[in-house]
């Protein structure tokens, strides 16, 4: 075997294993009380992802007829936003810009104590253990996180010029995967980063203009009604966001909201001509 490959083989096959003390939040149902269960996770390969570590733990629990730890997951490649738990006080754990499913055990050390909890917010009721109900986000999306496209022939792509800056900026906001870590890390359980990203991605583009004011007012109202807290500009969300959505989107949402209020209360009643944008 060529030495380069041999070294690689040795490195990957002789993975370090970790013995960890886990403190996992267990809660049988939405209305039940919860507690931290202490579980010893032994011989965890450092190449395992955080969710694979929980899979190993669950396998052991199942083998002794225990109740496996319930947690949300889907793609396991950092793109769907389904996974998410609070690891040592930080949603998605200690590595910046990384989802729980993409967090690897090599980030931790042998003998570490790891606290694992669900996202905590009134608007995200716990379903079981680490699984929470994030349908509040769906309601915010339904209130304006879309553009209305009438059917008909697709128009020529060049008929609608969009600057590269606007397109890039919109894509930055569109990176949000709707995981909810921003709410979980916010001291006030505010959903401003999520809402701002989801409104901002459309508000940046010409296609988003006709419904801009309606979108902003609708999404903010729904966000408030869902029981999320109010943003106090502490920027914990930005630090916890696995997609590094910046708080500049919050500033933009604040600005767009003010414009929407002015439009809705002053301009619209006296009949501004043309579209809403």
């Amino acid at each position, binding site marked *: 075997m060529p030495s380069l490959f041999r070294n690689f083989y040795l490195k990957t096959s002789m993975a370090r294993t970790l013995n960890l003390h886990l*403190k996992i*939040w267990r809660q049988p149902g939405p209305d039940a009380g*919860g507690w*931290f269960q202490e579980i010893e996770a032994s011989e965890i390969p450092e190449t395992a992802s955080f969710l694979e570590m929980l899979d190993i733990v669950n396998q052991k629990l199942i083998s002794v007829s225990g109740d496996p730890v319930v947690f949300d997951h889907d793609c396991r490649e950092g793109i769907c936003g389904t996974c998410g738990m*609070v690891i*040592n*006080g*930080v949603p998605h754990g200690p590595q910046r810009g990384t989802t729980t499913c993409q967090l690897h055990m090599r980030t931790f050390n042998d003998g570490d104590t790891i*606290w694992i*909890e669900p996202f*905590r*917010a*009134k*608007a995200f009721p*716990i379903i079981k253990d680490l699984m929470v109900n994030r349908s509040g986000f769906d309601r915010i999306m339904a209130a304006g996180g879309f553009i209305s496209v009438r059917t008909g022939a697709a128009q020529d792509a060049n008929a609608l010029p969009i600057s590269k800056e606007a397109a890039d900026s919109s894509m930055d906001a569109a990176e949000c995967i709707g995981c909810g870590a921003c709410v979980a*890390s916010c*001291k*006030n*359980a*505010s959903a401003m980063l999520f809402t701002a990203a989801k409104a901002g991605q459309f508000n940046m583009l010409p296609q988003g203009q006709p419904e801009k004011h309606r979108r902003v*007012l609708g999404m*903010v*109202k729904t*966000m*408030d009604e869902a*029981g*999320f*807290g*109010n*943003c*106090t*500009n*502490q*920027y*914990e969300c*930005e*630090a*916890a966001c696995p997609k590094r959505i*910046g*708080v*500049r989107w*919050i*500033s*933009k*949402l*604040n*600005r*767009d*909201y*003010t414009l929407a*209020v002015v439009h*809705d*209360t*002053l301009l619209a*009643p006296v009949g501004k001509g043309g579209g809403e944008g």
Partner: protein
Amino acid sequence: MSTLTHAVALTVGSSIGKKALVAVTGAVLAGFVLGHMIGNLLIFAGPDAINEYGHLLQTMLHGMGVWVARIGLLACTVVHVVLTVQLTRENRAARPGRYGYDATIQATRSSRTMIFSGLTLLAFIVYHLMHFTLRVGNEYATYKTTLHGEQVHDVYRMVIDGFSWWPASVFYLIAMAMLCSHLSHGVSSMFQTLGLSTPRTMGTFRMVGRAYAALIFGGNAFIVLAVWFKWVH
């Protein structure tokens, strides 16, 4: 729904609207604090300068000016305090279950203690108004001096006497430290809440907020210390 009730519902009835009102009233109060400090620094220009300034404020617009300012400031304070208390209560309610392992990534200490520093300041404002404006429990109202042949209030002596009693000075210094902390988050936060900050200006606004807070603290604390150490007497 009439336009007015609709506008009120969209502002006072929404998270962003309430925050915008907090930011605007906060801006007025922060501006006032700067003007107030500059006026007070006239103490270093001698008794006549500050007494004349005090007299000017009292007699501006035939004595109406001071009342316009008072009513305006009172209104801003009431809106600022009522809305922030309400927002804070909503924020507490939004996180009913606490984390077993509580961590903070990048929130500053001053941003996390806004309600505490704010309510301490409210208590201080009440005390400060009783001390120098309503002059409860002291004879400051009788302090008079002559300026350009006219009987005016002796603001200079009032300040010297006011800060010569050390417990009062200590409370003033503590309150100024609270104000410093409050402003260092509040001022930059204002730009974000009003949607004026962009990635390019965010760092600048943060610096401006801290510099503003340090300036207000430095200026005001300097007056108290100057009286205390008898640099002015």
